[in-house]
């Protein structure tokens, strides 16, 4: 009936197990996220000066939802923090790949879909506050494909930190997860900044010399800017696409090595 190390049937059983055991917690938590998101939308409408309301992106509803989803993601492997639950979980006859991949899909794709629903409900609510009509289209800036893709990228990056952290750090040490995230994100910002400096015409230390700049014609300058943009996008792609893959992979290896070493 089952394959050796990977079976969608077993993954479905794992999913069913998680859903039945955690159904109340999940409903409660996602309802809380929705309420917080609606409250946040309402308060920003009420409290922020109009200058911020001109562009919906600054309301930060999506960012709040992502932050709250990240908290849920940090509990992805909560069993590993409890001796008996950990034994129960590790002994389930399913491969590490199935256990890991199952929760990766649920917390990435599944949570993203739930987060999107909460986001759109919040936008409808926002539209209703503004116009007393049920429509999300009042906030077109918040629905631009580019912006939404960016949000997905941010969510997956944040997800990879917290998902990895839930396997790697004991007792859900959110502080350590956040510190790791800040260090990695800080390194990303620093790297982009250094690259900008190296290519900058106005940076005397790292950038090209003035004589070099004077020797460039307009076409060369254009090529130069293209190169700068390409380098920056390589760093961004690495950060937004490769780093999550790297952290997810690392998390899998960590789960594979997980042992129940408490007690002789």
């Amino acid at each position: 009936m089952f394959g050796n190390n990977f079976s969608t049937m077993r993954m479905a059983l794992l999913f069913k197990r998680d859903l039945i055991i955690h159904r109340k917690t999940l409903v409660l938590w996602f309802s809380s996220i929705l309420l917080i998101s609606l409250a946040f939308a309402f308060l920003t409408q009420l409290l922020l000066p109009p200058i911020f309301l001109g562009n919906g992106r600054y309301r930060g509803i999506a960012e709040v939802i992502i932050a709250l989803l990240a908290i849920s993601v940090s509990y992805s492997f909560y069993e590993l923090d409890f001796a008996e639950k950990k034994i129960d979980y590790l002994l389930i006859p399913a491969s590490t790949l199935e256990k890991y991949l199952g929760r990766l899909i649920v917390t990435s794709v599944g949570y993203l879909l739930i987060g999107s629903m909460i986001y759109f409900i919040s936008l409808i609510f926002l539209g209703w506050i503004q116009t007393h009509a049920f429509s999300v289209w009042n906030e077109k800036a918040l629905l631009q494909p580019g912006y939404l893709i960016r949000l997905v990228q941010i969510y997956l990056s944040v997800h990879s930190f917290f998902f990895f952290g839930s396997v790697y750090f004991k007792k859900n040490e959110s502080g350590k997860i956040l510190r790791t995230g800040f260090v990695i994100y800080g390194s990303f910002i620093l790297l982009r900044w250094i690259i900008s400096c190296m290519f900058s015409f106005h940076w005397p230390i790292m950038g090209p010399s003035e004589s070099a700049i004077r020797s460039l014609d307009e076409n060369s300058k254009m090529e130069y800017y293209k190169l700068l943009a390409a380098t920056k996008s390589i760093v961004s792609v690495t950060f937004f696409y490769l780093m999550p893959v790297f952290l997810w992979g690392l998390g899998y290896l960590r789960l594979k090595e997980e042992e129940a070493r408490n007690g002789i």
Partner: protein
Amino acid sequence: MVTLSGLGFRYEKHKPLFEDLNLTLAPGNIYGLLGKNGAGKTTLLKIISGLIYPERGKALIGNRETKSRSPGIMEDLYFLPEVCSLPKLRVDEYIAIYSPFYPRFSVDQFYDYLKIFGIDDESHLSKLSHGEKKKIAIAFALAASTKLLLLDEPTNGLDIPGKSTFRKLIAASFAEDKIIVISTHQVRDMNGIIDPVVILDKGRVILNESLSRINSRVSVAMTAAEPGGEDILYYESTMGGYAVITKNDGNDDGEIDIELLFNSVVGENSKVNTAIGGEVRNVRE
């Protein structure tokens, strides 16, 4: 067949628990795993079930290493820890989500076992006592019909009828293709069930022997006066006298008390162990 060969293991910042442990467990037996506190009984069960990885050596079920925790191994293995974690669900929900992972799980048997234990099958797991939860976990473990069943202190927390029921169920569910390993300090609860006896001491298996062989080699007698003489292998004071172990000259077909056996073999230079096996039986078959 379970084979542990050249097993080495230590907990961080502790001295080695096992340095070169060898043990073979064959189907058709209910092993009693005995040892002092800290001897490593639970650790050994965890290594066999793939919950802990040995630093050296191998733990094999058949020819597959248990540390892979592959579904093929895990669906034929059930480890019941001393303290078991049951989710906050109804019994039927618990069965619905866990039993499909075990191909030979019998739902009917599970409910039969619950009935024998006197547990209401409509109970909510969060509302049960520790002992009742343990009964459900035991019923599940037996109904899973895995070829290897590892039980860590299964009778801890059970009431007196529960212990007797446990013995009956173990005997009833046992089959020749199964290996059951029961780690316990409550040896009196296991009288008449466990055979062979495996005793762990100082990181080694110091005895792995069937009771029939043990009984054929040594015999036990009770005396009022303190015994003496070269034929005395071991004695200890009991209520109203002394329990004495001597070599069996072939005339005694009595059975040795497992607690007495344990006390007699864990000491240094145990004459009883020598009489039983001729050497410390650190089996590598």
